[in-house]
């Protein structure tokens, strides 16, 4: 249906174990470029686990073993030994469930990524990049007078947008978001959703969410997980209107989960 080149990331035969416990069981899922894909499913079904495989954040967890193929842009195996994990994470950014700004200034938060990757060559270039990133995260107007204030003084929603600004400051190709709005109120959530809709012009976004309405508002593709299995994937409109599987239907209609 879609031409191969339009996938930012393709995964196949993915198994994840925590010790002896299986968390992901033979999942194959592809993510179309410059579109938003949402991962849904009941709590504990392995959405976060799967998402963390995509930028190898599972490597941090000692007991976690990941198998399978993960191909980025049809060429790069992201688990290849000679690919530095730091380069991979430069290409695949992540926004966490709980806003986790560094307890440094707002400016420092956004400037940190470009600094360590040597993205900019001068201070003014860095200033511009920080400004631009904050702008695209829809936060600039709110914080432009206090860039040197400590970031942990911002509201939860502002902090989360700061984390998004931080993630896009190094111009990744893919942004992973793990329930980015679960700690936020409806207004802050709406802002983040608007932001996601804008960002998808330039980025491939993969978002884990518990909110059906959020999934249907922001994503074009949806994947439904249950107990480590990928039950069903497809166009968001189709999944939410006439899913093929009974389980999916039960979940989206709120009959279990």
């Amino acid at each position: 249906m879609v031409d191969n080149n339009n996938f930012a990331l393709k995964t196949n035969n993915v198994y994840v174990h925590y010790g002896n416990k299986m968390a992901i069981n033979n999942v194959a899922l592809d993510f179309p470029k410059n579109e938003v894909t949402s991962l849904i499913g009941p709590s504990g079904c392995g959405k976060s686990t799967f998402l963390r495989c995509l930028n190898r954040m599972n490597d941090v967890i000692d007991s976690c073993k990941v198998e399978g193929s993960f191909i980025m842009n049809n060429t790069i195996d992201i688990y290849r030994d000679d690919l530095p994990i730091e380069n991979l994470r430069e290409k695949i950014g992540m926004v966490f469930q709980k806003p986790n700004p560094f307890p440094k200034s707002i400016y420092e938060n956004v400037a940190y990524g470009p600094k360590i990757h040597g993205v900019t060559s001068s201070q003014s270039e860095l200033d511009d990049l920080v400004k631009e990133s904050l702008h695209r995260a829809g936060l600039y107007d709110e914080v432009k007078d206090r860039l040197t204030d400590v970031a942990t003084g911002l509201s939860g929603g502002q902090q989360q947008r700061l984390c998004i600004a931080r993630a896009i400051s190094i111009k990744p190709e893919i942004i992973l978001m793990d329930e980015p709005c679960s700690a936020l109120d409806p207004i802050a959530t709406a802002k983040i959703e608007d932001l996601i809709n804008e960002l998808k012009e330039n980025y491939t976004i993969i978002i884990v969410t518990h909110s059906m309405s959020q999934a249907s508002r922001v994503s074009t593709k949806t994947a439904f997980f249950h107990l480590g299995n990928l039950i069903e994937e497809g166009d968001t409109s189709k999944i939410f209107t006439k899913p093929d599987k009974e389980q999916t239907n039960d979940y989206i209609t709120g009959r279990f989960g």
Partner: protein
Amino acid sequence: MSNIKKRLKAERRFKFYGQLGVFLSLLFVTLLMLKIFTTGSGAFFRTTIEADVFFDPKFMQVDKNSSDKEISRSSFEALADSVVNNNFKDLNEGQFIKVREMFTRRFDYQLRDYFLDNKDDYKKTVKLKITASSDLDQIVKGNYPRNVPEEQRKINDYQLSILDELNKQERIGSTFNFWFFTNGDSRDPETAGIWGAIMGSFYALMVCLAFAFPIGLFASVYLEEYTKPGKITDLIEVNINNLAAVPSIVFGLLGLGMLIGVFNMPFQVPLVGGLTLGFMTLPTIIIACRSSLRAVPPSIRHGALALGATKTQTTFHHVVPLALPGTLTGTIIGMAQALGETAPLLMVGMVAFVMEIPGGPLDPATGLPSQIYLWSESAERGFIEKTSAGIMLLLLFLILMNLTAVLIRRKVEVKW
């Protein structure tokens, strides 16, 4: 109904026990302080005897044109004797010795120091307040009783009569004893000071800090951030905790056996004392640093890692700075402990009689607690107040250090 009464009664009883406990501990601390202050405050003042000093060319080898160096090298002993003879007429030899004993043995030094600053007084007569001997000082301060038989006194009847005469002429005075703060140790209590010991402790603590802080920090970072939990780390953990509970004298023996015995380092120097205190402080620092590292939320690490920071960048850009206040607090508390430790200093010889102020970590020195220990061992009455005054200073330093630790903790407390 009766039940609630009983419970309230028990509550009141418990509260009373608590208050009693607090009261008693405060009482003991107050008594201790009071005792130390009343005994120690005398050390900050010394008794003086006013005397006419004629800078008589007959008894001096130098004059107003001599260089400071020449003056420093020349003897003022004869001049001091002449001052005694001039101020107390017609003394026979026995009387002369007794009167001379009423002044400090360092009489000549005092004259020389004065002359260094006032060369124009050459051939002139000036009134100077000469420091009294410690025995006289103790009599004047009332620490020695006067109304006991002569043979039980250090000041005999003749000297007492001279003292009374001087008192009548209002020539007995008291002055702030800055020597206590600027001198090194001395055989004579009136000139003994604590500065040498303070510098000795200072150099030892600097060595301790320079040794234990970086090692403690890196060991903690490695254990917390780089090793995977397992049997070996558990073993190390248990050992470090045990090490923190090892009596300090054992570390002293380690310093003696290893630094001095194996590595042939010199005896008595702050370098060795500091390293020994460093062994002792290391576990304290590691424990404080590891718990501060553990208190840094993993989300901070994940945030940095997800941006493509390396493990080392994550650790040193984000985690360590956040753990630093806690580590510093622990370090200062560890150093305060080290400052008060006597046993390790005893083992490595930092407990000898040292008159010179140490100029660096390789000069022979005593430490503050060992100086206090030395003075407390001394039979002379004049050293008792020095002992207490030394304790006061030690407590002051401890309080200052602990206060700094608390302030750092307050000030840099991180909010997530």
